[in-house]
């Protein structure tokens, strides 16, 4: 039971971004993909979601190759949390989360009362039940990110994949969102998230994969993988580490 990339070559049609990457997402654990912007994190993420075709190697989902899996089947197993965006239309937050139920419905169906119950439960779980009736376009960036996480959970997936979940959030919201993501693993979900902040990988991930220039530079538990030498090489710039009370914080020099 894993979401795994094996010897993966990935990129866009006619344009290769990365080669030879193997990573595994295990239920109950969080894997951080850490690397500089342009290092291939998002492209790898989209390939593991089945949104881009692998150039080489395979992505397998619970032992089956994902390439042949129907799109609905995939959506019932993997929830995707994109970077929060404003959206073109002012759907109610409740309706946005209900869209997470789509893969469980027939082509011509609308949400059932059971779907609505699931949605209200997810909203409550993430502490955003009070937003249910508000327009998605009128809430804050941090709230939007939580709504998108609720939508992914409404898919009732086994894995949740998040693209830079805190990229556009202020300091307080970053912590709030990351704690929620961390709590997903306690529910037995496999979590994969990208970040360019080594401290997030250190603080919230069980394993971390360093991705630079489209290649996997290291892959292991944060305490082993994250050090000044590795991070300086990854970002091509000196990184300092500050240690206090058994807590290591990395700072750009």
């Amino acid at each position, binding site marked *: 039971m894993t979401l795994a990339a094996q010897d993966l070559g990935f990129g866009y*049609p006619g344009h290769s971004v990365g080669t030879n990457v193997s990573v595994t997402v295990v239920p109950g654990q969080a894997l951080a993909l850490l690397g500089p912007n342009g290092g291939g994190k998002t492209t790898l993420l*989209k390939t593991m*979601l*089945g*949104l881009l075709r692998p150039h080489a190697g395979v992505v397998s989902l619970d032992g089956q190759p994902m390439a042949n899996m*129907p*799109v*609905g089947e*995939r*959506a*019932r197993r*993997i*929830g*995707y949390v*994109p970077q929060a*965006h*404003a*959206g*073109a*239309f*002012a*759907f*109610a937050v409740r*309706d946005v989360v209900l*869209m*997470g139920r*789509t*893969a469980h*419905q027939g*082509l*011509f*169906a*609308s*949400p059932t009362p059971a779907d609505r119950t699931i949605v209200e439960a997810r909203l409550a779980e993430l502490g955003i039940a009070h937003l249910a*009736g*508000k*327009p998605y*376009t*009128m809430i804050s960036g941090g709230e939007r990110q939580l709504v998108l996480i609720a*939508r992914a959970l409404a*898919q009732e997936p086994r894995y949740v994949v998040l693209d830079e979940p805190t990229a556009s959030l202020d300091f307080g919201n970053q912590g709030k969102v990351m704690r929620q993501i961390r709590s997903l693993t306690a529910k037995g979900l496999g979590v994969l998230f990208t970040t360019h902040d080594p401290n997030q990988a250190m603080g919230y991930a069980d394993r971390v994969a360093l991705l630079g220039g489209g290649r996997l530079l290291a892959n292991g538990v944060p305490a082993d993988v994250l050090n000044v030498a590795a991070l300086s090489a990854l970002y091509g710039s000196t990184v300092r580490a500050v240690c206090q009370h058994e807590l290591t914080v990395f700072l750009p020099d």
Partner: protein
Amino acid sequence: MTGRFGAIGGITIGLGLLLPGVAVAFSVGRFPISVSELGLALWSTLIGQPSGLPPAVDAVIFNIRGPRVLAAILCGAALAVAGAAFQGLFRNPLVSPDILGASSGAALGAMTGIFFSLGVLAIQALAFGGGLVAVALVYLIGSSIRSGDIALVLVLTGVVIGSLLGAGVGLLKYLADPYNQLPAMTFWLLGSLAGTDRNDLLPLFGPIAVGTVVLLALRWRMNVMSLPEEEARALGVATGPLRLAIVAAATLVTSASVAAAGIIGWVGLIVPHMARFLVGPEFGRLVPTAALLGGGYLLLIDTLARSAAQVEIPLGILTAVIGTPVFIWLLVSARKSWS
């Protein structure tokens, strides 16, 4: 805003505007029909008894004004529903139902028919077919270009093909007989329901009903399709086939309307905004509300068109004169209703 009213509220408001509109439309004209006469005539037909009304009244209701009123409602509803569908599909509240070239294709078809002095039915058939062929062409070209956002590529292809077809229309107008053909062409291009009779209703109703039923059936998937492509796929929607189905349904509806009434701008652009303002963007609520508002709106415009002046005013001119200020008002004050 996610809308002030629910589905029932939207339908109630839509009917509340449409039904008085029907009464007004029948009572305005050279031969006014009162609501009681209309009611009596309809009821008698329903129960199969003679109404006792003068034959002229029956003729006006069933052969002249009635078909025109129904055609105005159908065309307005069609344009509004197609506009709502395309705006959702292209995630852009500024697109019209003819964004993929339906109107330009229909125009070229109709101009060809007028140029060769074909009959009314042939001109309508050419317009309908022209719209479908143009959109199919845009779709084929657009979806074979594998770069960037498919929605954007389709819209750009639609603009390009549309302007090519527009050049064809220009050429036919240039070559046309300036005394017989050119006025007919100009009149068609500005939109009119003046020649509508009973026989026009079935070819109008059939495609509009089929397309609208398909869009209504896909209402929940339509909501998901208004998300960015990759998100929709990650939520389990097979976006390729679904996009094709939505484009086909919306084009069917648009082409039927254009074939019957010529090119009527603005309705498909503005009415979905009004509907979204009332009931929010959720497609299951949006479609019925937009259909009723669009029907009522075009009926009002058509009533004005045949009664405001000594001659018939082309519909496209009235919708533009009314649509422009309404749209600017939407841009200025009601931005939140769609952004």
